[in-house]
């Protein structure tokens, strides 16, 4: 066992101190406080792990830029992952876990906007562009391959996309 050589500046030591908390964290999360008190049967570890990974992948790490809690190496993300894991182990549904974070952080925490109301625009607009472009391409290909030549073309159709 080696002790760390002392660093020159106390500030760096303190900075390094932040990392310390994380060391004791992931391994020692308290399990569900009273498993016997709950009706839900204990989930197998692999199920808990898989659901935790999926949930953590759908939530945004609040202290990072655009990374999910699953991907982020930051300390808060690790703690959130531990929290998700314990909530899943307690028998909470995916919707309940997501709802918990939603109620604390607002919609910003969801890495994918909920597909309802105005947000549908983000899903439907690209699809609509693809569909419209597809129709334009199909119509043009049909017209351009018509044996009688280009007669009867009324619209400016030299664009295949939008």
């Amino acid at each position: 066992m080696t002790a760390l050589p002392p660093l020159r500046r106390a500030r760096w030591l303190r900075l390094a101190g932040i990392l310390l908390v994380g060391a004791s964290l992931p391994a020692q999360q308290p399990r569900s406080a009273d498993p016997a008190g709950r009706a839900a049967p204990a989930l197998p570890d692999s199920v808990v792990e898989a659901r935790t990974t999926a949930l953590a992948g759908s939530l945004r790490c609040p202290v990072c830029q655009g990374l999910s809690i699953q991907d982020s190496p930051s300390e808060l993300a690790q703690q959130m992952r531990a929290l998700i894991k314990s909530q899943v182990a307690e028998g909470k549904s995916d919707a309940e876990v997501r709802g918990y974070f939603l109620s604390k952080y607002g919609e910003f925490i969801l890495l994918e906007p909920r597909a309802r109301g105005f947000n549908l625009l983000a899903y439907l607009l690209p699809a609509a562009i693809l569909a419209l472009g597809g129709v334009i391409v199909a119509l043009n290909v049909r017209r351009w391959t018509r044996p009688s030549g280009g007669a009867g073309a009324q619209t400016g159709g030299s664009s295949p996309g939008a």
Partner: protein
Amino acid sequence: MNWKRSAVAAAVAAPFIVLLAWGLTKDPREIPSPLPGRQAPEFALEVFIPGEGAHARNVGDTVSLAALRGKVVVLNFWASWCLECVTEHQDLSLAARQLAGKPVQFVGVLYNDVKDAGRQWVAQRGGEAYPALDDPGARAAIDYGLYGVPETFVIDPSGKIAYKHTGPIWAGLLTAKVDSILAAATPAASGPKGE
């Protein structure tokens, strides 16, 4: 040139520019919290720095929000590695001392830090007027939807979050918030306004 078509194309492009111009007036780092107006999440955390005077608590005691009903609670999340916490440190202690005679409890919650580093940080700054609590696993921080430090929550006597402040807070703002909550709560204590 077909000017009619040009005008149509320009009109199609214009809203895009307007959207971007609007976006420039916004700060992307400012994220509204859903918490103000809601019941504050409960917490019960251990004291590791006692604080002074009216706000003081014994080291090792547990401070729980439930036990603080009837008081305004000022809850400040901080860390020794947080640069902005330095700027607000004096102001928080100042406000705590100014409000000491009133039903107000200040508490600091250490966020993702080691207690020793926190103690050292406070000692270097000549102490703090209110107790500091430890939050292992950042459970309380996550419960309060923390994006970073410092963040400060003002909780009214009924346990609702009245105000959330992101970034360093200053004494004037804090005392004004607490006083206005106390002013609103005093008549409510004699005759409830009903809900």
